[in-house]
């Protein structure tokens, strides 16, 4: 990879250890992916926040990096392993909480905005179309690539942090227009589309393909669900929806398939592995204001039934905007901020969790040892009212 004189100096350590390490990381990644140069980015979003995932190794890395460096572009943060305020009520140990706070304060001293959400594109970190960015968190980066039309690769946490510190990223993959063409056209011929199931079905096709959907008209929130499910089921980082997202001029050179109700049903049948949920968790990705409003209007004037624990996971930014709706939701369950059912250690309290999220269906069995009950959102609400 070609480096400018200043980039060479950073690599040689002339601007401090943190920047040197960040440059070393970008050069290694750039060489692996055969990038020719570094290009400027306008924002970053970082994963690698939950103590459950990154552990002590992650803390010592962040301590080293935060000693003498700071991010130089607007940078936001993924969910940690607990609600920063109500962690005791979640059954989180003192030790876990102390280490989790340590991680967040390292990121804060690096200059990262501790919004603690997987949906920063809804409020505090909104890229513009065509901008190069460096985002981790598979669901969020797919959303900004696809729905907004910004350009990012599937970054890992440390790579995205290195890019944020230097304000640059190696130019390869989805930063190059020639790699962003759709490769498979998916005609959706289904009467009733659940976007988690559709995302699971298309993600499972695999092969690193870039889907181009026809026959659907998803809302912003449904796009968020679709992006998350496809990223979790099949590492999809970019997709197009005819008439909804920005679409490249030429979409003719693709493989073509169609998906109908029958196929979606057979995918849905495999998404559940349990029967008796001990927890019902909504908000993967984090609930938006619109989703909270919709839940509230369905639960308004209803009374809670049963004693299954219920979580509504969202960001602190969103909570601040919909107090009234959340008052209604609080009668049916806990409004959990910052974290979610995947990155908090729910396995210490529950064995079976019910969700309406395709992404959660993929990760709960592996990361949280859960049996999963997958249902439509309305069916989950039926279980509690």
């Amino acid at each position: 990879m070609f480096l400018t004189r200043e980039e060479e100096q950073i690599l040689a350590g002339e601007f401090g250890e943190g920047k040197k390490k960040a440059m070393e990381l970008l050069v290694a990644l750039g060489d692996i992916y055969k990038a020719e140069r570094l290009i400027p980015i306008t924002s970053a979003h970082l994963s690698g926040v939950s103590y459950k995932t990154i552990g002590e190794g992650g803390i010592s890395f962040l301590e080293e990096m935060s000693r003498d460096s700071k991010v130089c572009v607007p940078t936001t943060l993924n969910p940690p392993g607990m609600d920063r305020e109500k962690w005791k009520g979640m059954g989180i140990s003192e030790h876990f909480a102390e280490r989790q706070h340590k991680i967040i304060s390292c990121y804060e001293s690096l200059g990262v905005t501790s919004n603690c959400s997987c949906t920063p594109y809804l409020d505090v970190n909104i890229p513009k179309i065509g901008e190069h960015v460096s985002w981790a968190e598979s669901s969020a980066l797919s959303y900004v690539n696809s729905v907004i039309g910004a350009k990012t690769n599937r970054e890992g946490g440390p790579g995205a942090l290195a890019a944020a510190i230097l304000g640059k990223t190696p130019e390869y993959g989805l930063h190059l227009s020639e790699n962003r063409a759709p490769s498979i056209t998916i005609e959706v011929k289904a009467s009733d589309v659940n976007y988690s199931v559709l995302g699971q079905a298309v993600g499972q096709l695999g092969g690193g393909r870039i889907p181009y959907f026809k026959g659907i008209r998803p809302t912003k929130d449904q796009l968020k669900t679709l992006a998350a499910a496809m990223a979790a089921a099949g590492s999809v980082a970019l997709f197009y929806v005819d008439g909804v997202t920005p679409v490249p001029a030429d979409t003719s050179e693709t493989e073509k398939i169609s998906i109908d109700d029958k196929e979606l049903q057979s995918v849905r049948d495999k998404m559940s592995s349990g029967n008796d949920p001990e927890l019902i968790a909504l908000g993967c990705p984090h609930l938006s204001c619109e989703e909270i409003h919709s839940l509230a209007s369905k639960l308004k004037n209803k009374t809670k039934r049963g004693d299954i624990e219920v979580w509504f996971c969202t960001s602190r930014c969103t909570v601040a905007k919909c107090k009234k709706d959340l008052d209604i939701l609080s009668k049916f369950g806990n409004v959990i901020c910052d974290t979610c059912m995947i990155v908090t250690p729910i396995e210490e309290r529950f064995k079976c969790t019910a969700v309406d999220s395709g992404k959660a269906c993929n990760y709960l069995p592996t990361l949280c040892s859960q049996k999963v009950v997958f249902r439509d959102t309305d069916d989950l609400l039926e279980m509690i009212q």
Partner: protein
Amino acid sequence: MILTGRKISQGKSQGKVLLCPNPVSFLGGVSPADGKVSDASVNGQSATGRVFAFPRGKGSTVGSYVIMDMKQHGTLPAAIINESAEPIVATGAVMASVPMVDSIDLSLLREGDECIVDGSTGTVELPDVKEINVVSCVIKDGEKILFLRRSSKVGTFQGYWSAVSGFIEVNETPLETAIKEVREETTLISEPVKIGEPFKVRDGDTVWVIHPFLFEEKDCSIQIDWEHTEYKWVCVSETASYQCVPGLDIVYKSLGI
């Protein structure tokens, strides 16, 4: 011997090679507490302090943090060598300042080799292994090739079947050696019609750097010297059943015969 690869993570260190033939996932595949590698082929050995050589990384991106966790436990490998680096291990190596080089042919390494990895220059040095340049000259006549049996008077591979071969002396080019050896070992005066890409083969404490040459003759008669006891004209497909010098099959392949 020094192998040149690609620099992935800076720094230089030394240790004995721990060779794992399979891709490695640090998450679940290496224990941060004691560095033990779970892949059955390494017999429960620890990667701690070793030059850990494996084809490439695999598995969860959390693997990068596991390498950092090994740093905390003091169980890091001395260095990492890969055939082709991928982002998970590369990221972890840079994070934890473990020297790392990739684009290295692992078939040239042996378990327990003393090894110096320099991630700043992208080189891997095996101080106890010597590198020797040789030519391997195939003489083709129609569909048959000349196949020679090495005598008991030569220094290496006595009794093995081979092509015309010889050490490349200090002041010689490989081409000069090839023409000279063909003349000495067969009495033919000829020039090669094709030169293959040189390649390396590990054999004990030696790495042979073999330079392949193809000569073509018609209805030729030859005389062998003291270096061989007998010769045959055979088809390439017949050679597999003989005890041959290492790398001879690769010579044939690189010459397209």
